């Protein structure tokens, strides 16, 4: 009887642990108003359109050779 009680207690503890760990948010809580906004937003419409971006992009300044890897 004692063993049965111990086994049942163990099972309950395991289930509680699994519930706690599995229900923890893996990713950040994002403001409700932000969720899903990227899809179909004005930003995404333009920034996933390579042809459009090439038309409106600001040309890079000429490379002056100043940047270099350090070591």
């Amino acid at each position: 009887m004692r063993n049965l009680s111990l086994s049942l207690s163990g099972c309950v503890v395991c289930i509680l642990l699994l519930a706690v760990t599995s229900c923890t948010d893996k990713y950040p809580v994002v403001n409700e108003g932000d969720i899903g906004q990227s899809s179909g937003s004005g930003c995404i419409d333009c920034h996933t359109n390579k042809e459009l971006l090439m038309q409106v992009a600001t040309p890079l300044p000429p490379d002056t050779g100043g940047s270099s890897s350090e070591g």
Partner: protein
Amino acid sequence: MVYVQSSFLTTPHGNMSCIHCHGGDETQNTKETAHVNIVSYPSTDPDKYCGSCHAGAVTSTGTSLHKTQNGYYTLFAKRAGFDLRTDANLTAEFNNECGKCHTTCGQCHVSRPVSVNGGFISGHEFRRTPSMTNNCTACHGSRIGAEYLGENAGYRADVHWLPNAKRCEFCHDANEMHGSGELYDTRYDARNTAMPKCEDCHANARTVNAYHQRHWADGEDKEEVSHLACQVCHSQDYKNCNACHTGGAGITGSSYMTYKIGKNPIKSDRRSYDYTVVRHIPVAPTTFASWGIDNLAQYDSEPTWKYASPHNIQRWTARTDTTGGGECWSKCHNNWVGSLKTYLRESDLENYERQANQNVVIPTN
């Protein structure tokens, strides 16, 4: 041009609104109005944009040498006698020429570093592990990258890369990159235990042959024989610098390949070697003349041949290849002749460097 691949939108970061990190106004339909108050590089303020989810990494990265650049500040202070950050003009000069090389979360995990002109690695996707060539060797390329990948003509790639394909993170893990939470003066700060050592993996090789036993002393033998850094035997020639890549004054030569053994200038419990390979760094007393410092007041306090960790390791090198026999003196121990070019001698130094390197050069007698 900021082109976002649609695959990004299915990732955790892609599920967030663009303006959540970048600001701007997505309701506008022109580039100019949509980009008002845009934040191009959010992770320049990691506490605000990254810390709410990645608090641990953000906190410790505040102490990372990639972030603090303490290596520059420490060595400048030793040679100049004061902290350059106490002078607004010097700080501006530093930020203009050196400071732009520090990095942010995004410059390792999203794009190439700004100092090498940026650009997404993979269409704005966040990469847990940075790209070896687009991130690590994009900055650490002229010496470490070229050595490791075998890009120096006539020299082989590091054995850890070919054939073993060990990427940078195999040795330099996130704990080292993100910092420990403790501020270090330089990367070789003896307290920086996250900085890898060959012995971390190869400690068991200590007794595999007579050469290791003789030159890799430990315990009781330590007092009797010289203790060599692994690179002394297993490094190929490596690049030495003779000019600052940002321009500047003081020393204006070209880089060159060589190999020099010197006395360990940073001997500590962490790096207790008596001898190590040393690499030339391009600093002269007048290097910062264009910044208004005509002469570094304490130039002699730090050697210009520095402890080095060349990333071009081979089992068989000019020191270890004993094909055809030969004696110990034929490779290294003909010191009495003083002719071996592998030792750093006073004759290798410019006159102005001699005092600074007196504890590194190996006497000819």
